[in-house]
């Protein structure tokens, strides 16, 4: 039995049949391999997935710093998304990301409807804060009781003259956070992008899509891009703002970092504004170099290309010594990766930079194209759950549509750069590597035992399970409160953190000496102290007795 079969063996027939399709071992012809993805998690199987609301508010809308986002629902949903995702933001006048807003619905609101309270909450929010824009995110019960948040949003716009966008991102929609990304993308596309002044497109300008500035990754990526000479118009949405989003159509090119969460906007901007997009990855040294070169290639400007090489050379020189040091410390180690969207792919590059091989990679909420590449998109069958998520179509904007290149020129570019393409995770993995969709707790433990990776990069729900099992475990959602990990300097931060985990002195003390060394010595019976008489409070618990 290989690792996959061993792991699946414990499941009942029904669960086995389901989970089998979500796990594959990369073979010699990965282009022929198919994986099941973006389908329901099985009730009772401890999935790491979150909900639609988490994808919409938590991921895409949450980072906007000039926008007051009211979560319409009971208190928890807003509370859990308060300052917990490390999407850093800087704003001289203050940032809404430090705040948590909720209608804190009570039982009477659930019974009689919550719209009135929402309207009042909006009034209070606007009077207190005077935000640039207002967003409303709904939660499970709101969808069930039928509050019309979109009508409230329209009323708000009419009454207060402020942009107001409602997102029906109830937690039960779709099968994971992914549905929420899509809903957020739709709202932003419909109501925000391209509503700014129609200034001429800025030469060599880009948007950074799907970069949420976790641990400052976005800032580090921006620093590199600006060094080369690009103008970054908008970042979606790390350290992002409503204001910047309105101007995003003025950029010449979209750079897509996290394909899963934002490819909808990239696609729609292509149709509506003619903006091309390329897939980039600024996680990893070689990956960052490649991405910088790809972007320069897109613009085809010799001066940019020259500058790109200078920046690469300079950044490499800056990290050369530390790079060698950590490479020596980490080469030969193996890693398992389980994160949300694209990181399980991106971080393989970064690990490879330091000689670490990835033996397992999985996504929480990917679709088949994230595994197998965009070529499979036409073959993906819609199911009941995905059909419930609105897919909007956009038309070319007569005023703002601009093609940079002809189709023939684009075709030429496609041969050398990932223009409107993403090849997915599987082609980049070595044969024998395991790919798992919606990896659950049991499989995490089981694969850990089978594959024995030295490092397991996952989220906080797994982290302590893995660590307790003796594996080095770092959170790849929050970077264990470190970062940035993007770009050249970020790569060193990452390597330092991984090395720190592996070489932490505390590992030496896991096993106490008396477990390996005898402590009992011969003694006269009379010398041995009598154990104290145990009273009821001292008595071992029933569980200890039964376990013994």
């Amino acid at each position, binding site marked *: 039995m290989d690792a996959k079969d061993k792991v699946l063996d414990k499941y009942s027939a029904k669960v086995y049949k389901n989970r089998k399709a979500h796990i594959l071992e990369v073979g010699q012809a990965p282009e022929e391999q198919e994986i099941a993805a973006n389908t329901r998690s099985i*009730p009772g199987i401890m999935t790491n997935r979150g909900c639609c609301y988490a994808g919409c508010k938590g991921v895409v809308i949450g980072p906007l710093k000039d926008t007051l986002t009211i979560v319409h629902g009971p*208190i928890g949903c807003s509370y859990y998304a308060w300052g917990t995702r490390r999407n850093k933001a800087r704003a001289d006048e203050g940032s809404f990301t430090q705040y948590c807003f909720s209608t804190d619905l009570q039982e009477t609101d659930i019974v009689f409807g919550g719209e009135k309270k929402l309207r009042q*909450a909006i009034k209070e929010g606007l009077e207190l804060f005077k935000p640039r824009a207002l967003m409303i995110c709904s939660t499970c019960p709101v969808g069930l009781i039928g509050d019309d948040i979109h009508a409230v949003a329209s009323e708000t716009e009419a009454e207060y003259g402020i942009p107001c966008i409602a997102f029906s991102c109830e*937690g039960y929609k779709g099968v994971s956070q992914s549905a929420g990304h899509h809903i957020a993308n739709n709202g932003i596309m419909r109501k925000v992008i391209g509503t700014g002044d129609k200034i001429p497109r800025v030469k060599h300008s880009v948007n950074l899509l799907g970069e949420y500035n976790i641990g400052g990754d976005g800032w580090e990526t921006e620093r590199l891009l600006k060094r080369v000479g690009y103008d970054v118009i908008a970042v979606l949405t790390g350290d992002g703002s409503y204001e910047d989003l309105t101007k995003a159509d003025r950029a010449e090119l979209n750079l897509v970092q996290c394909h899963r969460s934002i490819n909808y906007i990239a696609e729609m901007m292509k149709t509506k504004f003619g903006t091309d997009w390329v897939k980039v990855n600024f996680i990893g040294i070689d990956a960052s170099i490649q991405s910088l070169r790809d972007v320069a290639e897109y613009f085809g400007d010799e001066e940019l290309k020259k500058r790109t090489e200078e920046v690469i050379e300079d950044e490499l020189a800056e990290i050369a010594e530390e790079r060698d040091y950590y490479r020596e410390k980490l080469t030969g180690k193996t890693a398992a990766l389980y994160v949300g969207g694209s990181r399980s792919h991106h971080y393989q590059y970064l690990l490879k930079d330091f000689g670490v091989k990835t033996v397992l990679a999985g996504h929480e909420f990917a679709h088949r194209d994230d595994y197998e590449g965009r070529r499979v998109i036409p073959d993906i069958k819609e199911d009941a759950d995905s059909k419930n998520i609105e897919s909007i179509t956009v038309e070319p904007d007569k005023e703002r549509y601009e093609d940079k290149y002809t189709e023939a020129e684009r075709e030429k570019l496609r041969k050398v750069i990932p223009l409107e393409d993403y090849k997915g995770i599987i082609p980049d993995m070595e044969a024998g590597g395991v790919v798992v969709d919606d990896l659950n*707790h049991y499989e995490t433990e089981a694969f850990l035992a089978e594959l024995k990776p030295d490092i397991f990069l996952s989220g906080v729900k797994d982290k302590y399970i893995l660590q307790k*099992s003796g594996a080095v475990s770092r959170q790849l959602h929050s970077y264990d409160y470190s970062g940035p990990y993007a770009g050249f300097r970020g790569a060193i931060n990452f390597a330092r953190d991984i090395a720190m985990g592996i070489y932490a002195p505390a590992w030496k003390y896991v096993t106490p000496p008396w477990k390996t060394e005898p402590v009992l010595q011969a003694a006269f019976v009379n010398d041995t102290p009598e154990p104290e008489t145990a009273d009821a409070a001292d008595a071992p*618990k029933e569980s200890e007795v039964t376990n013994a």
Partner: protein
Amino acid sequence: MLDLTPKGEYERTALRINPCKTCQPVGAMYAALGVHGCMPYSHGSQGCASYHRTFLSRHFKEPAIAATSSFTEGASVFGGGSNLRTGARNVFDVYNPEIIAVHTTCLSETIGDDMNAYIQDLDIPEGKHVIHTNTPSYVGSHINGYFNMMSGFIRYLSAKSEIHNGRVAVFPGFVNPGDMREIRRMAKAMKTPITLFPDTSGVMDAPMTGHFAMYPQGGTPLGDVIGLGDCMKTIALGELTSEEPAIELERKCGVDYDLLPLPIGIDATDRFLMTLAKSFNRDVPYELEEERGQLVDVMLDAHFYLVGKRVAIFGDPDTVIGLTAFALELGLVPAYVLTGTPGERFDRRVKKLLAAAGVDEETVRVKSSGDLFELHQWMMDAPVDLMIGTSYGKQIAKALDVPFVRAGFPILDRYAHPYFPIVGYRGALRLFEQIANAVMDRQDRDCADEDLEVVM
């Protein structure tokens, strides 16, 4: 930090800003983790379980296991019965717990899933249990979820047999494993056998051994949960947290209860020990008397650093009541006392404490159903010398540059705190040290060089 917060008060009736509470299910999950061999189970959308597990892991820096019904839109329309059936079967199959403790969510509550009926229909393996409680997120707070889950266990499991088991049931309130250990240690020192329920020690502070145990050594054994019905009486600690389950146990098994505040500070700890002593007709041992004396000793040693300092206290109701009582014992002056959990009983309890300490209640802002946004606004208006509360308070502490002592739930930004008690004399001694250090560090930081005291 918090630069958008305007000065001046503003009456809000609908918008909650920077809450000081969260929703019921996470409390239910935490309580369920305090029963040995138990798998908490969230009947709702999987995002709830994900958020709650994450939240608990961030506070305790420990695994927090829980399964979910993984509702989709279909289940939300047709009901979650089949999700629960599949879910429970899979949990028993794959994770093999002794018991599954189901709590609802705002989703399953709003569609009106009949949990009693669903659970009666389940195919439960021989010797295993499934219990449930209703935890609508739109009622109360995580505190309600905690006590509702306790009541759920009692309702389903606790039974009265012919004989007393010679124990007193102690309900510890919503506290850390370190507090639960301390309560057990005190009872042990008293030689008074207790059943602590729930008991997350050994679960949410499990040691590093190189092996992950899904059901670690700790937790109230199932047999003891059943045996609650045979206890001589219940000592319910935390008036707003533990009374409901105490009533439930009285109703079901006729076990009387004494309702006491969380044993935070001297007076409340005295009351707890006196109650234990009287229940068993035992003396309080010298070991504990010594601890008490040591605490009073340092309180006198350093009183001149603390007496008269204005303090803001915020967090969960019973914790805040306990911290306020101790603050008053230290001679601190509570300026703001706030909880996010609704219930005017909180206001009454705090005002009673203030009155007993001779503090004019007009000089103190006491509020239940409050939030940290208004606390910030109050503090902008009339500052304090010290804040005691949960992690989110750090924003205000940074914005207004106020010394800050972390206590309560959640503390997401520090390590090791769940191991240390704030209950009992030992817990109070630790709190005292933290409070005094915060105030004295501030004096060191702010004083002129010529005023820096090497001896204080």
